[in-house]
C-alpha cells in the first residue's frame, strides 16, 4: 500500500526525521489559516500517488495568499480524485540528497541507498551513472550498525555535522522501514538547508501488502485508487488493472495473465483490463465478470490452466455469471486443468464452447474485438 506524502511524513516525524512545518487542507477555503500558520512563501503539494508531481505541475511555490487560494481552487477543481493538498513552509535549500531503503532480493537484506544528487529522478541516475548511487545492505536480524551508517554517509561525500545529521536520519529511516514493513521508503529530496539542518523534502512509503494486518490503522479508501473499478476490485482482493482497449482479460495466475496480455498485443488487440481470478479468487467468476463488464469491452477473454483452481468450478461460476449478468459482449473461454473434461457440459446452458489452446483463444478474441469475426 502506497501512502500519500503527508502520511509518509507523519511516519518520518514519528521516527524523529525532521520534516518541514505543514498544514494538510482538503478545501481551498483552508488556505488562509494554513498561510497564517506557515508564512510566505509556501509550497502547495497535491496529495496524489502518481510520480512526477513536479513535472505535472502538482507541486508549486506560491508567494501570496491570493496566489495560494487561486492555485488550491484550481487543484481541487481539476486534479482527478484529489482529496487533499499539503501546504508546507518553504525551506532555504543548500543541497539536495537522495535516501531510500528497499529489500534486496538476492541477499535477503535491507538495502540502504543514497545519492549525493537528490531531487533528480533517481531511476535516471541508476540507469546512466550507477556509480553515483551508494549502497549498504543490512542484516534484518542484526539491524543497521553505527559503522555502516558512518561509512555510508562518508561515501555519500558528507563530512562533519552533515554526516552526523544524515546518519541519524538513516538510522531513523531504517527503524521506520522495519516497523512499517515497508517495501520502499524514500526521501527524495532530502534537503540540507542553509542553516545546516537536514529536512525531508518529500516522502514515499509503501507498506508491503502481505503485512497490512500489522498496520490496520491505514484504510485504503477510494483516494488510493485510479478508478472506481480498481477500488472495487481491490475490496474483493482481485488483482485488476484498467486500460483503454477492447479486450477484458479474466485469467488465472499472474504469469498466464501476463502472457495472454502479451499475446493480445502481439495479435494487434488492445486490453480493456487485466484481471486475475485464480488462486483464492477462483470461485469469484461473477464478481470478476462484473468488473470486466464495467469497462464495456468488446470481448471477454478467459484463460486458465489451474489445479487447485479447478476448471470445472470456474466453468460453473462463469455459467452462473453469464446467466445473471447477461453480458452483451461475446466471451472466449480457454479453460484447462483439473476438471476440464466437465467444462463443455457445464457451459452447455450458455452455449459457450471451451477452447484448449491459448493462442487460438487469443486470436479469436482479437478477431472479434477487431470486428473480423463474430463470437
Amino acid at each position, binding site marked *: 500500500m502506497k501512502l500519500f506524502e503527508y502520511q509518509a511524513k507523519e511516519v518520518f516525524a514519528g521516527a524523529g526525521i525532521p520534516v518541514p512545518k505543514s498544514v494538510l487542507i482538503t478545501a481551498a477555503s483552508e488556505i488562509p489559516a494554513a498561510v497564517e500558520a506557515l508564512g510566505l512563501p509556501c509550497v502547495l503539494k497535491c496529495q496524489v500517488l502518481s510520480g512526477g508531481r513536479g513535472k505535472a505541475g502538482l507541486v508549486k511555490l506560491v508567494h501570496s495568499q491570493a496566489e495560494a487560494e487561486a492555485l488550491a481552487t484550481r487543484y481541487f477543481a481539476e486534479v482527478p480524485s484529489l482529496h487533499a493538498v499539503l501546504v508546507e513552509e518553504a525551506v532555504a535549500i543548500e543541497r539536495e540528497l537522495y535516501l531510500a531503503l528497499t529489500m534486496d532480493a538476492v541477499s535477503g537484506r535491507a538495502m540502504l541507498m543514497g545519492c549525493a544528487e537528490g531531487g533528480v529522478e533517481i531511476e535516471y541516475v541508476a540507469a546512466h551513472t550507477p556509480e553515483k548511487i551508494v549502497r549498504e545492505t543490512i542484516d534484518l536480524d542484526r539491524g543497521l550498525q553505527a559503522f555502516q551508517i558512518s561509512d555510508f554517509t562518508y561515501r555519500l561525500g558528507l563530512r562533519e555535522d552533515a554526516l552526523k545529521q544524515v546518519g541519524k536520519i538513516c538510522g531513523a529511516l531504517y527503524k521506520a522501514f522495519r516497523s512499517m514493513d515497508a517495501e520502499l521508503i524514500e526521501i527524495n529530496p532530502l534537503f540540507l538547508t542553509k542553516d545546516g539542518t537536514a529536512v525531508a523534502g518529500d516522502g514515499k512509503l509503501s507498506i508491503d501488502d502481505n503485512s497490512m494486518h500489522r498496520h490496520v490503522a491505514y484504510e485504503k479508501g477510494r483516494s488510493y485508487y485510479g478508478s472506481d473499478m480498481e477500488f472495487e476490485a481491490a475490496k474483493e482482493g482481485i488483482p485488476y*488493472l484498467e486500460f483503454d482497449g477492447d479486450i477484458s482479460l479474466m485469467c488465472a495466475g499472474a504469469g498466464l495473465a*501476463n502472457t495472454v496480455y502479451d499475446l493480445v498485443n502481439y495479435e494487434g488487440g488492445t486490453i480493456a483490463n487485466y484481471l486475475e481470478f485464480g488462486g483464492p479468487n477462483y470461485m469469484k467468476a461473477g464478481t470478476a465478470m462484473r468488473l470486466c463488464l464495467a469497462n464495456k469491452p468488446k470481448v471477454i477473454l478467459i484463460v486458465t*490452466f489451474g489445479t487447485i483452481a479447478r476448471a470445472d468450478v470456474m466453468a460453473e461460476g462463469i455459467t452462473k455469471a453469464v446467466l445473471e449478468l447477461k453480458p452483451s459482449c461475446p466471451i472466449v473461454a480457454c479453460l484447462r486443468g483439473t476438471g476440464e473434461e466437465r467444462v463443455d457440459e457445464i457451459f452447455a446452458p450458455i452455449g459457450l464452447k471451451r477452447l484448449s489452446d491459448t493462442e487460438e483463444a487469443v486470436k479469436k478474441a482479437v478477431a472479434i474485438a477487431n470486428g473480423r469475426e463474430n463470437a
Partner: protein
Amino acid sequence: MSILIDQNTRVLVQGITGKEGAFWTQHMVDMGTRVVAGVTPGKEGQLCCGKPVYHSVRNAMNEHKADAAMIFVPPKFVLDAVLESLDSGIRLIVTLADGIPLHEQAKIRAAALANNAVVIGGNTSGMIAPGKAMMGSIPYWISRVYQPGRIGIMTRSGSLTNEVTAMVVAAGFGVSSLIGVGGDPVPGARFAEFLPAFEADDETDAVVIIGELGGTMEEEVAEAISRGAFTKPLIAFLSGRTAPAGTRMGHAGAIITGGRGSVADKTQLLESVGARVAIRPREVGALLKEALRERKSRL
C-alpha cells in the same frame, strides 16, 4: 537422477494435519513421495495420511531422519516453520504459502543463505521429479504436463508453468525436475542457484526457465551461463514483454522499476550468452529441439 528430490528423499511435513496439508500430503504419498512423518503442535501421537504426527520438528527428527521439509502453514507462520526445520538440520525446505510478509520473506532468504540451505517458495506450488517424488501442490496427474523426461524446468509462475510445460511435452519431451521458485519478490531460492545441479544431472539434457518481468533472476541465469556454470541448452519464456513500465503485473515482484527488469533487457542478456528466448509459449518446444540438435552436432 533428478535434482534435489527423488523417491528416496525422506520428507517431513510441517502442518500435516491442516486441510491443505493433509490433502496434498496424501497426493505426495500417492505419487510415491517418501513422507516419513508430520508435525503439528499439540497433535503428537496422532496419525495423518498414515504417517506419525509429532509436536515439533525436533521430536520428529529424533525418530525419523528426514532430508527435506514440506511446509503447509499459513503465511505468517512460515518464517517460524522454516527456522524450525533449519534448527533441526534440514537443508531442503519447500513452502507454498502466498502472502508471507515481505520482511519475513527476506529473513527466510537470509536464513537459507546463512545455513547453506535451499528454501523453495513461498507463493509456489512446489517442485516435482515426475514419476519419483513431489513436494507441494503440483497436479502430477495431468499427464500432458507432468510427463517424465529429460528437461529441467524452473518457474516463477503457477498456471503459466502448466501452459509452457504442456508445450514442452507436446514437442515430445518430458520433465526431469521442475522447480517452482515462486512469485514473491524475495523468494527463498533463485533460478541460477539450481543451474549447477542441472548441469551435473546426467538425466537432464536442457533447462527451460519460465520467468517474467521484474527482479533479476533471469539476469543471474545469464551471468551464470556467461561464467560457465551452466553449459547445456537453456530456453527461456518470459511473460510481461508488453507490460507498461512502473505497473505491478500480478506478482509483487513483477514490475519494471528504475529502468530495470524489462523482458526486452532480460531477453537481450540471455541471448547474448547463447540462451534461446521464446516469444510465445508454443515456440519453446521448437527452440528446445533446435538447441538440442545443435548441441548434439557440436559434441
